[in-house]
């Protein structure tokens, strides 16, 4: 593999507090040097990056790659390809596959499929409980040895307080977080969107904020009891942000993520029964959007994670009640964040990179998220000013279920490098993969 010199970029590396025009030299799969006027070694490929931003490759703690089980809507290969198109060099795959990723063979399968795909790194997350049934704990030790970086019953909450307690305690041995999808299913049962005036008008059963808040409260109490690390998936309510802020102030080992859609949309997007606005947790109200944004700004919420959830066109082309929850997010996350958070001055660019690369890597103890010499040569180079239009038909993902179709966004990924190899170049287009949409 040839050395690569990224020349003249604005290098943003929050892990070392760097934000300056410099060159980055990658060789042997790792970062060799970052500095001004680095010469290109013999045979090196040079990427001219004047006017562009170079940053540690983005890390997504929350994706659903659907393989095994629903290869018709996404595979590890297409999901990983969509990831690098969006600037992500590492993604963490949730275990609600079919069969559930709850044993070392299943974890090993994901690792080997990702290796074959050769684009973004894919780190498996194992189930907390066998079959995600909320009963017997999975074998965390063996799963971590096979490559799992965290455990979660995502798609549903860790079923009982007792299971959450024991999982947090047991996970301490391996230093991994327990990621919880906070939803009291007795409160959310049958719900299709946020419970509020819009659900009342549309006649759709609502999911109240409290469905999230009561489980967040439970988990904070259990983090306090056990000293274990809870990571809160896709936070959507003002109440959850308030509780996490308070828990962090008390020094508890809690971290949290928020999705691009919860940062940018409200339940009004469900108007007209648009099934691409149906997700779980549901889009909330303006006060919640303001709260998750404030949480992201002050660090209460550690990172942005996409909850990339591909679904078949036919499944979403249905009555709102009958359509599945979820939206794809890998290919729009960076553009949305730059357009909606950085451009209006809510978040600085270095803070955004911190929230999309450095912190998420730290939460699951990945070596990425930094451009320190010796770190993996995982880099994203993007043009923060370039405008583009979201065209789902041109996604690398097999699925197109996005509420952002037609949006004009700023921030275009020029190159994504994983392990010192260019895995995505702007202008690349999907080469006729089978699609889940006509």
């Amino acid at each position, binding site marked *: 593999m040839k050395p690569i010199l990224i020349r003249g970029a604005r290098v943003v590396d929050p892990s070392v507090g760097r934000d300056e025009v410099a060159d980055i030299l990658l060789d042997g799969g790792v970062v060799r040097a970052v500095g001004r006027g680095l010469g290109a070694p013999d045979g090196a490929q040079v990427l001219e990056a004047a006017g562009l931003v170079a940053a540690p490759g983005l890390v997504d703690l929350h994706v659903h790659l659907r393989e095994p089980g629903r290869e018709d809507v996404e595979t590890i290969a297409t999901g990983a390809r969509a990831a690098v198109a969006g600037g992500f060099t590492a993604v963490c795959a949730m275990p609600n596959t079919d069969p559930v990723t709850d044993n070392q063979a299943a974890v090993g399968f994901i690792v080997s499929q990702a290796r074959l795909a050769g684009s973004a790194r894919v780190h498996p997350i194992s189930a907390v409980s066998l079959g995600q049934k909320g009963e017997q704990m999975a074998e965390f030790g063996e799963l971590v040895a096979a490559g799992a970086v965290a455990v979660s019953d995502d798609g549903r909450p860790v079923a009982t307080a007792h299971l959450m307690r024991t999982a947090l305690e047991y996970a301490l041995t391996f230093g991994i977080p327990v990621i919880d999808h906070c939803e009291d299913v007795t409160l959310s049962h049958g719900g299709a969107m946020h419970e509020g*005036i819009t659900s009342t008008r549309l006649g759709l059963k609502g999911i109240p904020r409290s469905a999230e808040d009561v489980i967040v409260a439970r988990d904070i109490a259990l983090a306090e009891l056990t000293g274990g690390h809870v990571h809160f998936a896709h936070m959507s309510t003002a109440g959850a942000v308030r509780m996490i802020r308070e828990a962090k102030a008390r020094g508890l080992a809690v971290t949290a993520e928020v999705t691009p859609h919860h940062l940018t949309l409200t339940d009004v997007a469900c108007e007209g029964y648009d099934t691409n606005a149906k997700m779980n947790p549901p889009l909330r109200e303006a006060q919640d959007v303001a709260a998750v944004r404030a949480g992201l700004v002050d660090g209460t919420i550690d990172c942005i994670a996409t909850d990339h959830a591909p679904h078949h066109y036919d499944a979403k082309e249905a009555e*709102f009640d009958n359509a599945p929850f979820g939206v794809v997010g890998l290919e729009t996350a960076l553009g949305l964040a730059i357009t909606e958070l950085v451009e209006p001055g809510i978040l600085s660019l270095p803070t955004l990179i911190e929230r999309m690369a450095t912190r998420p890597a730290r939460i699951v103890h990945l070596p990425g998220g930094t451009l320190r010499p010796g770190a993996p040569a995982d880099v994203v180079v993007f043009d923060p000013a370039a405008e583009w239009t979201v065209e789902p038909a041109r996604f690398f993902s097999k699925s197109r279920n996005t509420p952002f179709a037609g949006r004009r966004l700023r921030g275009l990924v020029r190159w994504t490098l994983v392990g010192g190899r260019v895995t995505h170049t702007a202008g690349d287009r999907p080469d006729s993969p089978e699609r889940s949409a006509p």
Partner: protein
Amino acid sequence: MSGALGKDLLGLEYLSADQIRRILDTAEPFKEISERAIKKVPVLRGKTIVNLFFEASTRTRISFEFAEKRLSADTVNVAASGSSVSKGETLVDTARNLEAMRIDMVVMRHMSSGAAKFLADRIESSVINAGDGKHEHPTQGLLDLLTIRDHRPIAGTKVCIVGDVLHSRVARSNIWGLLKLGAEVAVCGPRSLLPLGIEALGVRVFRRVEEAIAWADVLNVLRLQLERMEAGYIPSLREYYRVFGVTVERLAKAPRELLILHPGPMNRGVEIDSRVADGPHSVILHQVTNGVAVRMAVLYLLAGGNPDLAEAAKGGADR
């Protein structure tokens, strides 16, 4: 087809006060058709209408069918059981197949909120929402308005909707229609059966039915479904009647005479006392009669009929 109402009738939320008044005014001349010995006029001759009912319905389906037949439309009834729907066909495929047979209108009842809009967005024919989930039941709202208007001006009238507002499409259509025509609207029921934030629509909330009765000119009493008790929204039907039942004793304390509406089917002795349902202030059967006229008006207007010519049209002018 587009006329006074546009292509479809999906809900009263999406109509202007003028459009609603126009439907009610158009219904007036149609009332008389049902009183004739020969109850048929050629207003919709040659039009094909499909009644697509995914949920059981007696009153609404029959009312639509009478309205269609009395206007001389050709009609087909499709029920979910025993049709291709029970074989797993999607809603949109069912509709497209019907449309391929060249129809003019679909009257649909469906268990999912938004199903009528979903269908209307995907087919060319007019869609009339005959009840979609918990969303709207616009022709029921219209017949309730017509019935109230037969007794008193709607503007300024105080109407309280009593019961399971949370799960009621009738309540939503009533709220929109009444507010648009200038009525004052309230709801009353156990808080577990009232939608969160309902006040934001511009309605008052009464916690006790006695307070509602003291305030209102009209009570629209909703059906309380047995499933609500099973799902834990209320402790028991007995308890519901005790606390929220519209009884003669409670009505006797009203400061004025109340008009009593009920969309049916009634649970006598649960939400309403038989002596009230059959009493002098009940207009429940009048509602049913008005239902046919209102549906005729809707069919006529969606077929492109001119509201000002309804009287002439029913005389037999071939359009």
